[in-house]
């Protein structure tokens, strides 16, 4: 793959591919595709998608909605025509141990009449009706594209309703066109920031943390919280998995913010550092290495021997159970090649390491919203020649997968049919997944899922080009062992 290491025009990087398969790439995206091992690696990212692209990204509204959605006792009202609310109804597997209010989809369902004469009245009526009916702990009001255009003053409506109903009503300025999904993360963080510090409590709770950026998909946060409790750490607020308004209000009483999904939550962590002097660390809970480091780092932060001993004991206990099980998977899976395309780059990095543990090499890796630091880190941990891509689309992805002969694709709902149509395995790492993939238990689930998709006998019926035959035959042999 010598040609890959030179940073020149895309058609020169991929001369053969371009000849066989014209116009894979969109003009203007040349610098969003790179290769590990490239001496001039300089990923261009954090930019808007090209017009006309079939980007896998969504919009500002989406970014804000995924962050705030898991707050289970809040009312989430989407102010706009019906689509935005319909498409996000109960869309994530963000579990709640109590109220389920977040799983309902509330919309002002704007019509032409409101588009012309304004939607403030309808929003006011919707909010007051819904607050009376559901008695939420707080309300979030998401403005969608046209609300930004027709000029509804949702701040004013929120204030009015807040005063009348005596609950916090927060506007979330989520007009879809107003940036990228990442900007949506920021507006969600801004809303959270307004909530934090509004409780009576000011005093720091000893040995306490907030968990930022875990959304309790398939109950993952419950597992993590259990780990932290076992090593003697108190959790103040879960932002936002299985989240509660009251906990978030007093998040300022924590000693440390532990940030996963850094893309969505770093803004809030920085904000809290500034306002309340709470330091933060970035962690990931995917894979043994990152999971264990998260526990060690938290223990180290509190500089307390008993906590570190407890963390070491926990890790040792878990690994004693886990490693023999993983070893078996590794034996069977060695030689498989993975393509990863997920929303956040930090998750992608953990996946590379987790895959390595089970013998799977990453050959293509990309994200919707990674930043420069993320991509530099990806470049450092990936094997030379790995294709690294920012804000990709189906045509590029299928091309990279074939080019690098990936045998497994790890992604979300929109990536799944690409893998299946290419006749390769797929692992769901999306927000609606039902299997926990974080933590030690999650690592085993992850191995099981990769194994299940790689070793399924169904691939024998998929006709493939000769270059893809070899890994398939190997799969069959492995399975029969």
């Amino acid at each position, binding site marked *: 793959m010598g040609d890959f290491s030179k940073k020149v025009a895309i058609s020169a990087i991929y001369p053969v591919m371009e000849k066989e398969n014209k*116009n*894979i790439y*969109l*003009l203007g995206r040349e610098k969003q595709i790179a290769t590990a091992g490239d001496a001039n690696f300089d990923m261009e990212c954090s930019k808007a*998608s090209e*017009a*006309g*692209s*079939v*980007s*896998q*990204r*969504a*919009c500002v*509204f*989406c970014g804000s909605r995924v962050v705030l959605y898991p707050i289970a006792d809040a009312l989430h009202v989407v102010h706009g*025509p*019906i*689509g*935005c609310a319909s*498409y996000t*109804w109960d869309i994530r597997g963000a579990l709640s141990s109590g109220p389920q209010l977040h799983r*309902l*989809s*509330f*919309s002002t*369902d*704007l*019509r*032409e*009449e*409101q*588009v*012309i*004469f304004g939607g403030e009245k309808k929003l006011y*009526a*919707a909010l*007051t*009706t*819904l607050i009376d009916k559901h008695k939420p702990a707080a309300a979030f009001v998401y403005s969608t*594209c*046209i609300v*930004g255009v*027709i000029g509804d003053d949702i701040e004013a409506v929120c204030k009015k309703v807040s005063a009348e109903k005596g609950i916090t009503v927060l506007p979330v300025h989520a007009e*879809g*066109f107003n940036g990228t999904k990442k900007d949506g993360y920021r507006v969600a963080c801004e809303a959270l920031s307004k909530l934090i510090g509004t409780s009576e409590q000011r005093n720091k709770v000893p040995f306490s943390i907030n968990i930022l950026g875990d959304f309790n998909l398939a109950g993952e946060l419950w597992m993590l919280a259990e780990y932290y409790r076992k090593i003697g750490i108190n959790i103040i607020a879960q932002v936002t998995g299985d989240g509660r308004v009251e906990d978030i209000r007093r998040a300022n009483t924590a000693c440390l913010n532990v940030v996963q999904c850094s893309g969505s939550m770093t803004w809030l962590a920085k904000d809290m550092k500034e306002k309340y002097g709470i330091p933060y660390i970035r962690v990931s809970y995917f894979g043994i290495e990152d999971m264990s480091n998260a526990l060690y780092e938290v223990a180290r932060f509190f500089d307390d021997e008993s906590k570190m001993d407890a963390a070491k004991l926990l890790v040792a206990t878990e690994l004693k159970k886990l490693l023999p099980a993983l070893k078996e998977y590794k034996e069977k899976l060695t030689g498989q090649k993975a393509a990863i395309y997920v929303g956040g780059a930090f998750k992608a990095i953990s996946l590379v390491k987790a895959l390595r543990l089970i013998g799977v090499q990453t050959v293509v890796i990309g994200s919707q919203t990674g930043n420069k630091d993320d991509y530099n880190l990806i470049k450092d941990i990936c094997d030379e020649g790995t294709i690294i891509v920012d804000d990709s*689309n*189906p*045509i590029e992805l299928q091309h990279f997968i*074939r080019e690098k002969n990936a045998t497994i694709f790890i992604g979300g*709902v*929109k990536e*799944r*049919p690409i893998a*299946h*149509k*290419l006749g390769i395995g797929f692992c769901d790492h999306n927000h609606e997944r039902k299997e926990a993939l974080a933590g030690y238990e999650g690592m085993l689930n992850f191995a099981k899922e990769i194994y299940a998709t790689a070793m399924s006998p169904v691939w024998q*019926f998929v006709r*493939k*080009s000769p270059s893809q035959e070899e890994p398939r035959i190997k799969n069959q042999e492995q399975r029969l062992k």
Partner: protein
Amino acid sequence: MKTTATYKENTTAAATTNACKVCSPLGASVAFKGIKGCVPLIHGSQGCSTYIRRYLISHYKEPVDIASSNFSQDTTIFGGHRNFNKGIDNIIRQYKPEVIAIASTCLSETIGEDIKGLISAYKAQHKDEPLPHFVAVSTPSYQGTHMDGFHEAVASIVAAFAERRFKRSHINLFPGFVSPEDIRHLKEILEAFGIEAIILPDYSESLDNPNWEEYHRIPPGGTSVNDIKKTGSAQASIEFGHILNLGNINNSVNDSKVNPTGAAFLQNNFGIPNMRIGMPIGIKATDLFFEKLEGIAQIKTPEKYTKERGRLIDAYIDGHKYVFGKKAVVYGEEDFVIAMMMFLDEIGIEPVLCATGGESGKAQDRIRQLTGNSKLTILQGMDFETIASLSRELKPDIMIGNSKGYYIARELNIPLVRVGFPIHDRMGGQRILHLGYKGTTQLFDSICNALIEYKQNNSPVGYKYM
């Protein structure tokens, strides 16, 4: 017993909770996927296309590529022409489509984008280059539902291409928003009658492809532009549905939106007779469809289908006691609900609640006309929260509709028979057959078995014979 007539419709409610509808660009996108070599473009923010793709992929389990013009703040202030032009450039570069079909959004409509003007300008700029065909449809999501978007798109496609100059050896069939399996079944029936038909849209392949040897940027399948041209030279059109996009758009200030359907357009502008019938679900509705086909083909219904009909009657008889008097909640798109009500009327299931998210203002009268049953009521403008609260009181035995009603069936501990769109929590939504004698037989069996299974599961001893 309480009936739904005692409940007020939900159209004036301040808020919609768990909508029983999605927005119009989604319907347009589905219709566009039924054109051969077509890449849909949604002129608006990126989320519109991504959310719609995700919603459709979860149902069809196929790649659904829909491009977006990716509006930014600047686009919203200064207009979408730059994004539009670049978007078209990029789609042509990556996909080499035969057709680019553009749906507007609430955003592009609100800022007053003139998509037809943008297309003309683009064509003028590139007049020496080979260009794809263009179709545009106005689908602001603050008007109507996904069904309005679907039928508006079909009408726009016909209006863009229909021509008179072809041999009149064929008919047009506008099946409406049915499953890929339904379309395949319709093709088989038409073939058996020896009727040459242009089906529009035809996503029987493009949204339900076989596994591929090579990856296709644009999935194979769909009605070709050449065939769409021929719709203007057909002997007749058959159109399924009574409501289509003919309803009043509720809360619309501008009431001029009375665009005809594809078949109505051809009738008005090309003099092609339009046979508008309901979706052929149930014996009576399917008989009507076969009658039309007999008239067109001038032959009797082939034996294969008279036997299918006979088997359906046989099934009705074998299963009649399991369904008679059962109370059902039916929900979904207006035409779908009307078709289901007519079918349930044939088998003695009492539809205690028939609910739709549509707001045509026509469904209620239509169902009473069709059945002669003045008690049948359709509640329009419903959301699932209202359906849930009414269902708690009405205590139905079964729910029939898309997968979104699952949470209600779960709460009430009653069976849900999944039909229509979307099916997001099961395999095979794209392969459910609803239409014809065969589709009705499968539907009847599913309903019987759901009720039998429920009884069996709740029996203290379990049993081996029905």
